[in-house]
């Protein structure tokens, strides 16, 4: 029974990691290419979830909702880039943080104004309902397995996009020397809009996928955003590979900590105390891990050499 539980928890950690990867990939891409700290990334996650919930409720199809979430998040992302973000590339990080924080407030209040404060209903598609048996006698929710699969597909897709295509070449070039590629005649402002919209679409996809598991409500993006920042700091800012590894580390450490720490502590102290202290320690664990990694690799695991 314990092996089954362990496998299930590992899968849970992996699923959380993959979801964080979808968020962190966009964040790190935008930071790597444009040097921009985008706090509003969590709001794009929320936009994706709301778009999916609205379209799914109107049409009855989760899949149409998923398409809508990609379109809406990419659309809102492109709009924000053209209207606001474009003016921030030459400013320092404090200005960027202030402006994108303002965007969080605007998008949150906008969503509240449009949809109200009560959570929306979004259910898992019928094809992915239920659980599948695991080796060792356990069971695992099919939908979470699907999220893991989607996450790895996106990771492979991003790898191919960045290392094999012309757009990817430009993104890499933009990362290392933006003046030079502008001088070579690449339309840098369109490239930035495309990268920003791509990052936004990934956040929107994460929002829609997770919205079906959790609750679709205003402010759902901010807690995830904090974890996504932890991920890119661990992984090395600007590195997609780092984002994937960092996300899986954070996901697995967080899940395993929540599950194992209280039972480990119970060996040395009364059960009631162990559950409370264990829960408190588990919530700190990923930050402890982050501090340890940064102590040995100050710029993250896979820092881009710049």
């Amino acid at each position, binding site marked *: 029974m314990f092996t089954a539980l362990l496998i299930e928890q590992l899968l*849970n950690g992996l699923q959380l990691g993959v979801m964080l990867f979808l968020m962190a990939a966009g964040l790190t891409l935008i930071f790597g290419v444009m040097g921009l700290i985008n706090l509003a990334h969590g709001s794009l996650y929320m936009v994706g979830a709301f778009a999916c919930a609205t379209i799914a409720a109107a049409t009855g199809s989760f899949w149409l909702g998923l398409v809508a979430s990609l379109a809406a998040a990419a659309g809102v992302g492109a709009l924000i880039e053209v209207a606001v973000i474009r003016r921030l590339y030459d400013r320092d990080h404090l200005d960027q943080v202030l402006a994108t924080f303002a965007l969080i407030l605007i998008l949150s209040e906008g969503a509240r104004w449009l949809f109200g404060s009560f959570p929306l209903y979004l259910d898992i598609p019928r094809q992915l309902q239920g659980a599948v048996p695991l080796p060792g006698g356990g069971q695992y929710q099919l939908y979470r397995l699907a999220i893991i699969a989607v996450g790895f597909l996106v990771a492979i897709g991003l790898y191919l996009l960045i290392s094999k295509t012309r757009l990817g070449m430009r993104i890499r070039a933009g990362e290392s020397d933006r003046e030079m590629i502008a001088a070579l005649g690449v339309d840098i402002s369109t490239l930035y809009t495309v990268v920003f919209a791509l990052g936004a679409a990934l956040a929107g996809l994460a929002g829609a996928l997770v919205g079906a598991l959790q609750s679709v409500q205003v402010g759902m993006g901010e807690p995830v955003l904090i974890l996504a920042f932890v991920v890119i700091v661990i992984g090395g800012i600007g590195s997609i590979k780092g984002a994937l590894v960092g996300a899986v580390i954070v996901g697995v450490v967080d899940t395993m900590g929540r599950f194992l720490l209280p039972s480990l502590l119970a060996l040395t102290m009364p059960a009631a105390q162990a559950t409370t202290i264990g829960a408190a320690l588990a919530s700190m664990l990923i930050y402890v891990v982050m501090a340890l990694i940064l102590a040995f690799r100050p710029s993250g695991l896979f820092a881009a050499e710049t």
Partner: protein
Amino acid sequence: MKRILTASLFGLSLATSGLAHAEPVKIGVITTLSGGGAGLGIDMRDAFQLAIKQSGNKDIELVVEDDAQKPELAVQIAEKMIQGDKVDLMTGIIWSNLAMAVVPNAVAQDIIYLSPNAGPSALAGANCNANYFNVAYQNDNFHEAMGEYANKDYKNTFILAPNYPAGKDALTGFKRYYKGTLSGEVYTQVGQTDYAAEIAQIRASGADSVYFFLPGGMGIAFMKQYAQSGVGIPVMGPSFSFDQDVLPAVGDAALGVKNSASWSPDLDNEASKAFVESFKAEYDRLPSIYAAQSWDTANLILSALSKASVKDKDAFRAALKAADFKSVRGDFAFNNNQHPIQNIYVREVVKDGDVLTNKIIATAFEKHKDAYAEQCGL
């Protein structure tokens, strides 16, 4: 001359009528209007405003502020209301950790605070205060009721709650009356949205039932994930995870779940029926338990205002303690620690047409008192 006399008489009569009329009353409402817990605070605020509006009392001025479910923000707002706005009364806080941050300090400055929801145990026992009235419940109460009810069907329950004062009160309350064994006891983070790790533990624990207290968005996330996990053992909870604010988002996964509360939209009394009807007419949705408690808080304040001046603290406190108002919960009285003595019901989630709502199926406790009142010196 005659004209001057009439004018001055008229003026005098105006002045005296102004005096005879109740003096203005300022009520500070700190509640959660943004973030994941906003649904609860909005129901609280809407019901409070509606009750004041219906009373036609024009002397009451409300100062409403959003605490964003952050204790440090709530403390700042409270200071501003007490020092700047000079409020006479305060109310509105939904979350126990925020109540713990605000209430002890406010009542120490001789502000009367009426709680429409949070009822942390730390304020119900030895640290009770003459200026603190809880119109909702002591936190343990609903959980005690479910613990008692669970004895009927279950022997081995897995319990979980968030790691904050109300979460600890919840599991303490459940355990106080539950006679079976516990196959697991877990505290989760406040605001947590993914419960996969906990659900895996439930599956492995061999429990015959699950009791959880996860208010707001936390409960929605848990129920949706639990329903999909294939664990399949029955769940139960306090009303907070199955109330009108979350049911539409949880969907049919909640059907048939038993939960405990001091009120339900189908409770059979005049005040409750009138409340549900006017709330629906005004806001076009069914009220939640938070709305009901807040409605009672407003009506309690109105009843006390009609008896005593808010400036005469002793008289006003006595008028509040008399609880001479029509509660939507039926019989309502204050215990010595100024927490309610009330019935706690067991409800079941049902579908009324297309709308998910609750229906009372049993009474767990009649005229229930909390366990801390004896330690209170009032």
